């Protein structure tokens, strides 16, 4: 297996991990909102999860580390373009989710923590799934 094939296999793996992260984020948010768990100590694992997801979605780890040839192939021009597109999807998902929650705030009173959590989760899920989908589609 040459470098290009190795990078492609890892890129596919990264896309699958992003789909799994999206499912985990969604499940965690649904469970916490349904059970009304807004306590700060319960938010800590969630902060770790969104931090890790957001960090992996950016190209920052590639900038910090001394990139090997495979890492460079996994962060080439197309991948950076997919990142930009996925950030845009995340931005709109965040706007839409926040606007939707604001619109129904009178009927269903949410806490500020819940609103923030839902908005961030929606944005991250949209960005992660958008990135993973674009990457897998490009690899076909």
């Amino acid at each position, binding site marked *: 297996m040459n470098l*290009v094939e190795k990078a492609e296999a890892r890129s596919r793996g990264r896309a699958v991990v992003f789909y799994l992260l999206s499912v985990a984020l969604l499940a965690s948010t649904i469970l916490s909102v349904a059970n009304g768990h807004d306590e700060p100590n319960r938010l800590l694992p969630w902060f770790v999860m969104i931090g890790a997801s957001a960090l992996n979605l950016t190209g920052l780890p590639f900038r910090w580390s001394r990139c090997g*040839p495979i890492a460079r192939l996994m962060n080439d021009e*197309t991948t950076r373009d997919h990142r930009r597109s996925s950030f845009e999807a995340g931005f709109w998902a965040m706007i839409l989710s926040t606007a939707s929650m604001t619109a129904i705030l009178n009927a269903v009173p949410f806490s500020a923590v819940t609103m923030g959590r839902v908005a961030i989760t929606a944005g991250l899920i949209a960005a992660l799934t958008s990135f993973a989908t674009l990457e897998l589609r490009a690899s076909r």
Partner: protein
Amino acid sequence: MNETLGNDLKAAREAAGLTQGGLAQAIGVSRKTINTVENGVFQPSTLLALKLARALGRPVESLFWIAD
């Protein structure tokens, strides 16, 4: 006016006897970059377009053009 970037990359690559993976390795990008450029999904930077032209031994303007 809705201008797009046309390209002859696939034909030029096949004429050179290269696979997408082979061309990708030659210029140091992923295979998906070659694939998306060939399909017109992704518009390459000037740098990438010049690298592709050099690898295929063709002038860049014969590989890429503005399609009206």
